[in-house]
């Protein structure tokens, strides 16, 4: 195993965790957006590093689109909100349960990176087209609902 891969993965994981913590705990939305962008870009780098380049490219496009959308609407929704009491007994319990359930498959055995593949299955275009149509129909439906709501 190449030690450079291990060191690089540790650096990427640590920076992504720190940036997400910054995004969650920051009071200003603009700073939180910067943390969110850093976290998602680092996650896409991690996906590309594990021999899944197609998924990394799609995830990066989705993450950048989300960032642009949130950055576009955040100035008109600028507000400093008071957060909930975060250290009640339920919240650490839920987070601990999530950690326990998700960490179990990792402890089963050492996981090796998958085989590098630049191609997609032939039916990907049909599935993507179907879901693209679904998203377009959803957008038009939302537009119709908004227009009817403005009339009321």
């Amino acid at each position, binding site marked *: 195993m190449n030690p450079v891969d291990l060191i690089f993965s540790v650096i990427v*994981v640590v920076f992504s965790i720190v940036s997400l913590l910054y995004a969650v705990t920051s009071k200003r939305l603009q700073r939180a*957006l910067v943390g969110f962008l850093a976290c998602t870009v680092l*996650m896409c780098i991690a996906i590309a590093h594990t021999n899944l380049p197609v998924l990394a490219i799609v995830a990066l496009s989705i993450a950048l689109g989300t960032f642009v*959308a949130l950055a576009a609407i955040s100035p008109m*929704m600028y507000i400093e909100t008071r957060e909930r009491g975060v250290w009640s007994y339920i919240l650490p319990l839920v987070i601990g349960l*999530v950690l326990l359930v998700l960490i179990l*498959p990792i402890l089963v055995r050492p996981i090796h990176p998958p085989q590098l593949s630049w191609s*997609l299955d032939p039916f990907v275009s049909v599935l993507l087209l179907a879901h693209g149509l679904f998203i377009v129909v959803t957008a038009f439906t939302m537009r119709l609902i908004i227009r009817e709501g403005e009339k009321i």
Partner: protein
Amino acid sequence: MTYVNVYLAGLVVLTAISVYGILSSRNWVKILMCLEVLGLSLIFIASLLSLSLNSISNIGAAQTYLVVLVAVDSGILGVLIAVIYVLFKKMGRIEVDKLSELKG
């Protein structure tokens, strides 16, 4: 322990932080950010486990399934952003607790 294990452990921590952010935050934009990170990390975990443990033999089919998951995730996010925008236009605020005023 390979570097994929390091990525998986980090993704589990990211998932937990996202759940924490969703449960503790009152701001809709922060909840959306945490939802997006949660979706991406879960998709990444699922892809690594399914591809690396050979539970899905065809790597092309697995990537197709995961790309579709990402597309659906983006559609859900777009709908949520539209709903939040309309709520802000109608109510002038985006705090989750104030949405009880929408009750008839």
